[in-house]
Each structure stands twice: as C-alpha cells, then as structure tokens.
C-alpha cells in the first residue's frame, strides 16, 4: 500500500506539474483577456526545442530556457493574431497546432536526421540534493527540480496577480478593457504580457515532459495534455491556484493509468489508456453547469480583442 501511494505521489507530480504549469499560464492569459487555446502547440514546441537546446548546448537547463523561449514566441504570435489582428481565437490556436506538428517533423529531421523521435539528451529528472533529508528524502529526490520550480512560480505569480497593482491592472484588462484604458492602463501591453507568460509556461511544461521526465522527444508525446490544461482552467474556477490543482488532478489520472498498466488486471489495455481522458472528461462534465459559477467566473471580456481605435469587437 505504501509503495502504491509513493508511486502515485511521484507519478502525479511528475506528470501533473507540466499540465498544472501550462494551465496556470493559460489562466493568467485569460485573466488578461486573451483566451490561449493553443497551449498544446506551445507545449509541443517547448518539448521539442527543449530537447534541441539540451542537444546544442549540452545542458538540460539551457534546454529548458530554449523551450520556454519557443513557447513565448508562440504566445507572442497568438497574441498578435488574436488581439492585434482580431482573428478568431480557435482559428489561430488550430493554426498553431498544425504549425507545431509540421515544424516538429522538420526540426527533428534537420537536427537529428530522424523522423518521429530525437536522440537522447541530457535530462534533469531527479534532485539528488534532497536525498539527505530524513524520511522523505528518498521520495523527494526522485522528483525533477522543475517540480519544485513549478511550485515557486505558482507562489510568485499568485502574489503578483492578486497582491500587486500590476496584477490588478492585468485583471482589469480582462474584465473591462475600455475602463482600464480610460484609467491609463496600457491594455495591449498587459495582454501581451499575459499571453507571452502563458506561452513561456506552456513551453516550460512541454520541456518538463521531454527533458524533466524523459530524456528525448517523441512525436505525439504531448498527447492532448495542452487541451487538458485548457479544461483545467475552468475546473479550477479561473484562479491560478485552482488551475494548478486541477492540472495536478489530471496528472493523477495519468499516473493511475500508468499504475494500472503495471498490474495485471483483466481489463483490455485500450480501456486503461482511456482512463486519463475519460476521467478528465467526466470530471469536467460534472463540475460544469449551473453550479460552476460558485468556484469562480471567467473574466468578463475574455476573448474580445481590444484596440484603442475600435474598442472591443
């Protein structure tokens, strides 16, 4: 039983933190008013470029930075297309997803000469420093330092968004951009800040999967986790903490799936593989509806592009 709990605990944090980080970023972007549904693409490119960075610079940490940068650029493009050009969000997101799929293939081919997977690179999947802590040291040291970094980022962003003037300004851009503009707040700047942070966090989440959990990139390794992150935002009631917790919950389903695969239960493997998706889907179905407002509301101007000239459209 204890070994089961330990396994689930470690696997949940390993698999859940990427979703949680991405989801938290998406929530931040939504608070600023831009709906970033391209999280999946940002995770994919983060994972891919993270591996490339680790390969080029022989350092997993530089890889993480490269992955974040890739995500940030995707976030910037999304912000530009959606907020400045006023294109429909779903369209831009889908374009990014296709673009990332295509780019994955060409980058893998150009850098590693393979189709579908990369070489093995340096990874940061454990934290040996923590091994000396009594009792829990063995468990804690098996987690990537990025898991702890994620919690630190959550604390910092939570403080920035809810306790500082800057964060409150960002929230006003998502609630009523015209009012914020009238009060002298640079709506465009804050919105771009939000969506770019979201992109960088999505990139970090992706890089965590490729070099914080495994040590290579495989085509399709993100497996819809970016969309799980989108679902986690509303499940978490549009708060950073909530989004993070919901992301970890989805990671728990994923961990459960892995555990059931190691046991020899007489269930067809396809149904076991279905667990994370079906469970997340059911949770979302039961959590939405009339009572979802109790957990928190989406920002009022979410998804409405804003420009000084024509206001919200």
């Amino acid at each position, binding site marked *: 039983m204890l070994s089961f709990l330990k396994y689930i605990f470690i696997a949940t944090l390993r698999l859940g933190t990427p979703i949680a980080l991405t989801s938290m970023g998406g929530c931040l972007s939504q608070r600023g008013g831009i709906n970033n*549904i391209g999280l999946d693409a940002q995770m994919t490119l983060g994972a891919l470029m993270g591996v490339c960075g680790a390969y080029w610079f022989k350092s997993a940490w530089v890889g993480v930075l490269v992955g974040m940068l890739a995500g940030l650029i995707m976030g910037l*493009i999304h912000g*530009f*297309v959606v907020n*400045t*050009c*006023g*294109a429909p969000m*779903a*369209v*831009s997101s*889908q*374009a*990014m997803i*296709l*673009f*990332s*799929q*295509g*780019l994955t*293939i*060409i980058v893998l*081919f*150009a850098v590693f000469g393979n*189709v579908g997977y990369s070489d093995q690179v340096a990874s940061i999947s454990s934290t040996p420093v923590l091994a000396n802590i009594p009792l829990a040291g063995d468990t804690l040291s098996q987690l990537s330092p990025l898991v702890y970094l994620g919690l630190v980022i959550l604390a910092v962003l939570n403080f920035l968004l809810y306790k500082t003037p800057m964060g409150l300004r960002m929230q006003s851009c998502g609630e009523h951009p015209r009012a914020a503009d009238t009060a002298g707040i640079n709506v465009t700047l804050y919105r771009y800040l939000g969506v770019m942070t979201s992109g960088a966090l999505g990139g970090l989440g992706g890089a965590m999967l490729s070099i914080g959990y495994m040590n290579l990139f495989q085509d399709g390794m993100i*497996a*819809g986790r970016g*969309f*799980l992150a*989108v*679902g986690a935002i*509303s499940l978490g009631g549009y708060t950073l903490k909530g989004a993070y917790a919901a992301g970890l919950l989805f990671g728990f389903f994923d961990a459960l799936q892995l555990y059931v695969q190691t046991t020899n239960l007489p269930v*067809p493997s*396809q*149904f076991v*593989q*279905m667990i994370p*998706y*079906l469970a*997340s*889907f059911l949770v*979302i*179905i039961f959590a*939405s*509806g009339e009572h*979802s407002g109790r957990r928190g509301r989406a920002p009022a101007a979410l998804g409405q592009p804003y420009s000084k*000239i024509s206001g919200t459209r």
Partner: protein
Amino acid sequence: MKNINGTRLKQGLADTFSSLVALLLAFVVSGLLILLTDANPLEVFSSLFVGGLGSPLALAGALNRMAPILLAGLAITAGNSCGVFNIGFDGQFLVGFVLAAVVGYAVPLPSFLLIPLVFLAAIAGAMLWSFFPIFLNIRREVNIIFSCIMLNYVGKYLVNYLIQQFPGYIASTGGSPRVQDTAMLPALIEKPYKINLAVLISLVSLALLYVILFKTRSGYEMRAAGLSRSAAYSAGIPVEKKAMAGMLLSGAFAGMCGALELMGITGRAIEDYAPGYMGLGIAVAMLGREKPAMILLSAFLFAVMKNGTTLMQMKTGISAQFVLVIQGLLIIFVGIGPLFRYLMNRFHEGRKNSHA
C-alpha cells in the same frame, strides 16, 4: 447578364487575393526552411508538383486523393458556418471508419444495398460522436474544444479495441480482415486510369452543402448564427439549435469521409489509423471561405501535394511529412489575413489625420 453587386464582388476578390497571398507566403517560408536543410527549394517544389500532377496517371491519383480531403474540408466548413469549431473530426472519422468496416464485413447483402448501408452506419456513428460535445456545450457549458479532444482520444482507443475484437483480426498488420468485395466502391472510370466513385460522391456532397447553406432558410439561419450569435439571437433565430445542426452536419461529413476511406482506399479497418485529414480539412475550409469553387480548388491543391510527396521524397530526400509544414504555415498566414485589413485601416487613418 445579371447585375453584379459591386461590393460583393470586391469582397470576394479581396478574399481570393488574401488566400493567394497566404499561399505564396507559405511557399516562400517553407522554401527558406528547406534551405536550412541543405536542399534546393525549387527542386523540392517542382518534384512535388510533377509527381502530383505531371502525368495523366498522377492526375487520376490526385483526383482519388481529393475525395476524402474535400469531405474533411466540408466537415470543417459546415461547423465553421455556424460558429462551431469541430476539432473532434479525428474521433468522428475513426468511429465512422470502424463502423463502416463492421457493416462491410458482417452484413451479407448485394452491393447496391450494402454500400448505402455502410454509409448510413458510418454517418450515424460519427454524428453520435459529434452530438456529445455540442449537447454538453449547450446543456452544461462544457468547453467544446476540450470535449472534442477528449472524445478523440476515447474514440481512438475504443476503435482500437473494436478492431481487435474482429473475428480473424490480423495482429501482424494491426488490422481487421478485408471487408467483402461487395462493400468496395466500384470505379467511376476504369480505363485508361482508374478514378474512384468517391470523387463523384465528394463533389455531390459539396453541392449538397452549398445548397443547404445558401439556398435554404435553415442554412441562412445557421450562417447568421455563425456571423453574430447575439444579432441572430435577437432576430429570433434559435442559435443553439443551429449550432447543434451545424455540428451534426459536420459529423455526418466526417462519417462519410471515414466510409469513403474504408470502401475506396484501405478496404479494412487499421489500428491507430491517422491519415491527418483534419489538418487538411481545416486548411481547405480556411482557404475556401465557404466558396464552393475555392473549396474545391484548395482540396485539389492539397491532394496534388499529397500525391506528389512520394516523388519528392525519392528525388530530394525531404521527408514526406514536410507537406505538413507547408500546410501549417499556410494556415498561419490565412489566419493572419485580418492583419492586412488592420494595417490598411491604420494606413487610411494615418492619411486622414495628416490631412486634417
């Protein structure tokens, strides 16, 4: 000659123009990407199009490949027209695909009865798969993109499971046994080059969608709901019903695409089948912008590119998947289309201000 509406013509030309610009930019940028991999872009593109369109045989191949792409484009267009983004195409396609295989394998009927039955089964299954997301969206406000993606994965594993339950499942190739010969689509033209009946079916579907969207009241209301939900709502249009209709229509086309794939191309259900029609469908829908001729043309273009990849790979060593990069870029540039409008507006305003 009919009196042509000036502004409408202008708008149509602007749409076509921005599609062409997007196309051009996509090729330029992907050419630059090819340069990065030390190959010659001109050689790559020429082998792509020679292989896809260069001979009567290649032309027949391109036409055959066009049918499922066109249907995928119609599926996405049907959803877009009333403001629903059907990202669940992949799941609906697979459900239609496997149900077509079940009926085509198990039901002993003559061809002229069996083929319509296979279509019906595939369409019903795919419509069911597209019903859940839109129903949950209307009833419980579940994010439609989220539920579509979850159902894609659930569908994928469910379909894999069903295929393994086939009597005579072939583990080495990961597929069901072949369906009966009576379930295979007859050829439209047998000689000199084989052209599938699927081509005709996809063209009829295009005409059908056009008539539904532009010549019926229901289609008009669907488009109105897609253009502005609130305006349509205040005009008394049942917006939710229209979204439901659009999504189900989209699902029906996805199921049809799955049935055509089975009866025209594979002849059996295959595990983890992912021909990537959703991406192509989105590209077709975005380039086509609800104009039948443009939809047809862009579906044909992608079919040519898909058809030519083998020769491109043989001649230049560039991965066949590279076509995906061009598609991805194309969609990005089509998506940026409104940017041109925005820049034009800025330009005009700047001029006005300088005169004042």
